[in-house]
Structure formats: C-alpha cells, structure tokens
C-alpha cells in the first residue's frame, strides 16, 4: 500500500519504543513531506535520537506503523532482511561520531557502499565520489585516511558517503554535537546547501540558530512525546507550552 499523499515521504503512526522498563518514545505520529527540513529539538533523554533511529530501524519500535517512500511496514511484525535493506537504501544517516571506516581511504569509504549496496562499478562509484567530494569541498582528501582529518572534515565525508547512495531522506543524529563550534559551522554550511537543493532532512540538533534559519518545521520532544511543533518562528519565539518555553529559555539565555 502506498502513501495517500504523493508529497508525503515519511510517515510514523503510533510509534512506541520501549527499553526494559523504560518507555522511550510514546505514541508518536509524524508526517513529513518531500523536500521538508525538520529539526527535532528538546532536552536530552527526550527520545529524539531514538525516534530518528526508528526511521531506519536501527532502533526496533515495539508497535506502530512506519512508511518511508513507497514502503510501508507494520513494525510489530519482524521485518525480513530484504525489507530492512529497502528501508535503509531509502534513508541516509549521519551520526554524531561520524563513524567513518578508519581502515579505508576517504574515497573507499564513499565508493565501497555504492559498489556493495547499489552494485555500481568501481569507475562509476569513484566518479560519483569525486563529484560529492567536490560538493563538500574536500576533493583533495580522497586518498587520506579519516584519522588524518579534522572532525568537521570527517563529518562532511560522512555526509557525502550517505548522499552517494541517493537516499530519499537524510537523517542527522546531532551531527555537530561532537565538534567545536567553528568546525560545526562548516558542517552546517553543507547541510544548509543540501536543504536548499531540496533534500528531505530530519535533523536532531541542539543548534537552535540553525533550526530557526533552515528548518521548515521545528518539533519539540520531551519525555518521549512530541509536545509542540510548527514553523521555527512560532515554536521558538512563541511557544505555547510551558515546558517548551522553559527549554528555549535555558538555551537562549546561554547564548
């Protein structure tokens, strides 16, 4: 079964995630349109990352329905390996700690997944890799090992690696939290450009300024639930709930 709205690309319905004795995500409903940029914010422990990780099933929800692109899954059933593969091909993920493969050059980090997952030839993959490295402004680093690069450079490589598989939606799990502010900026610049090019993005972040500027919609989570959502203007400047107000006050007072 397809999504009813052709513009819709991700849909979560009644998603629940439980760890032993802990209800991490509670009855979350979320619909995301093609090309939309979503920022998920909220205090730590709110379930933001867990929610993001259910979209490519790195986290297995207890119950609910999940649709990504043309695929729709009832997550209470065990998905087959083929279904999971489809889901992961439709999504690209960028982690807080970059997670590049340390024993491979930058070029191989980006080319190998294209060859193994999409079946591209080495020449095709390397051509695409060169193009993406150009785009994240690291063309001269193709033959370096990740350990030789700064955190900001590694994260841009990680973004290129995910983009190389032509995902329909990009998931960012606190992409700048492990970086000092200046290096974070170069990563945010790449993300801003990506958003401008029409990529669908879901970003878990503490960068409120980035959320305000780039996101089409800001979602605030607390205690495993979405407590508020809307345009950045509405949510950040005029939050309706006291919990949201308290959260933004804590962040904005710091700056």
């Amino acid at each position, binding site marked *: 079964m397809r999504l009813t709205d052709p513009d819709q690309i991700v849909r979560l319905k009644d998603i629940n995630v439980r760890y032993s004795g802990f209800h991490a995500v509670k009855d979350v409903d979320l619909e995301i349109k093609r090309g939309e940029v979503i920022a998920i914010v909220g205090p730590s422990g709110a379930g933001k990352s867990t929610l993001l990780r259910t979209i490519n099933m790195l986290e297995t929800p207890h119950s609910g329905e999940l649709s990504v692109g043309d695929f729709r899954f009832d997550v209470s059933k065990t998905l087959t390996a083929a279904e999971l593969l489809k889901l*992961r091909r439709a999504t690209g*993920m960028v*982690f807080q700690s970059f*997670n590049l*493969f340390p024993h491979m050059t930058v070029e191989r980090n980006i080319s190998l*997944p294209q060859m*193994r997952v999409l079946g591209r030839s080495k020449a095709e993959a390397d051509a695409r890799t060169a193009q993406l490295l150009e785009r994240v402004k690291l063309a001269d680093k193709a033959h370096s*090992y990740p350990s030789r690069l700064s955190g900001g450079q590694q994260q841009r490589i990680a973004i290129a690696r*995910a983009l190389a598989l032509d995902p329909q939606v990009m998931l960012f799990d606190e992409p700048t939290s492990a970086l000092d502010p200046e290096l974070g900026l170069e990563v945010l610049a790449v993300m801003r450009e990506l958003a401008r090019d029409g990529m669908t993005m879901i970003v878990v972040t503490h960068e409120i300024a980035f959320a305000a500027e780039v996101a089409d919609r800001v979602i605030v989570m607390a205690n495993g639930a979405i407590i508020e959502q809307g345009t950045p203007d509405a949510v950040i400047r005029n939050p309706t709930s006291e919990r949201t107000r308290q959260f933004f006050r804590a962040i904005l007072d710091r700056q």
Partner: protein
Amino acid sequence: MIDLLLSILRGLPATFGVTVSAFLIGAILAVPLVLMRRSRSILLRLVARIYVDILRGIPPIVWLFIIFFGIGNGFVTLSAFQAATLGLGLVSAAYLCEIYRGGFLALSKSQEEASIALGFTRLDTLRFVLAPQVVRVSIPGMATFLVSLLKDTTVASAIGVRDIMLYASQEAQAAGGGFMPFIMAALLYILLSIPVAYFSRRMDALMRRRVSK
C-alpha cells in the same frame, strides 16, 4: 659441541612444522568458532563456548595422549607428527577464537551501526568493515600466542615427535645426564621466537601508523 648442536638441530623441522601447521589449523578453525561465539543462535553460541572451555581446560600433554593413543589407535591411524599437529591445532583454535573475540569487542558498536545504516548485508559488514579491523587489533595477541605455541610443541616429544626437545633428551641420556643439551635447546627456542616478536612489532607499528586516531 658442534656434533651436539648438529644432533639437536635435526629436531628443527619437526618443531617448526608442528608449530606452523598447528597455528594455521587454529587460525582457520577459530574463524567459524568466533562467528558461532557471536551468533544470534543460543545453540551455536553454547557449542562454541563449550568447545573453547574444554579445549583450554585440558593440559596439552593429556590432550595429545588422548588423540594419539585414543583416536589415533581406534578409527584412523595417525603418525605422532599428525597427532601433535591436529591436537595442538584444535587447542590453538580455542585460544585464537578468544583473541579474535577480543578484537571484535575492541571495535566500537558504531562501526557495525554505520554499516547497517548504509544497507550493507551482514556478510558484507563482516567482510569489509569488521574483519579487517579485527585482524589488525588481533595481531599482537596472535604473535604472543604463536611464541607460546612454539614452546608448547615440546610436549609433542612425549608422543615421539622427533623435535628439538626429543633430540635434546636423547643426547642428555646418552651423555649420562648433563645439562648442555638442554641449554642448547633453550637457545634454539629463543632464536626461533625472536623473529616472530620482531615481525609482530613491525606489523603492529605499521597498522597503527595507518589508522591511528
């Protein structure tokens, strides 16, 4: 003196042969074993666990006697060399399995997560991402084990393998005691172990330079 040395050196091929063959058997057999240890199936994990615990629990000399006088005389005939190689190979598999497992544990979980998120199959994740890194971290442990295996092959002389230890004992008996043959054997074992240690340090340094954080 030279005669004595030449006599003991006759044991070099057997010592070398048992060490290398047993190590190779162990290194190869430890691969399916460690995969079983990490399997999602409780049964496979249990079987591998029991194998490791048993093989590490039996003294090598007892184990060689069991193989040589038990299995070797029953179903198939095994030469002393074959029995020693097989016996020590099976024991090595248990130890090397644990060394590999340590290598897997040293890898951060995030490497596996990144592979999964990219859409790698489990086999591809193992082959391209995990295994190459596990091999790298396992090299020092494997080298240490190889040196200790070299010394453990002396138990093969107990079932009649014509190794350095056997010739040294023979020379000592012929001379009516005397410890010179054993001193010579000791020097030979040290000489054999030095290249292994050297090679291991070189490999380790090389790998570290490449992927150091």
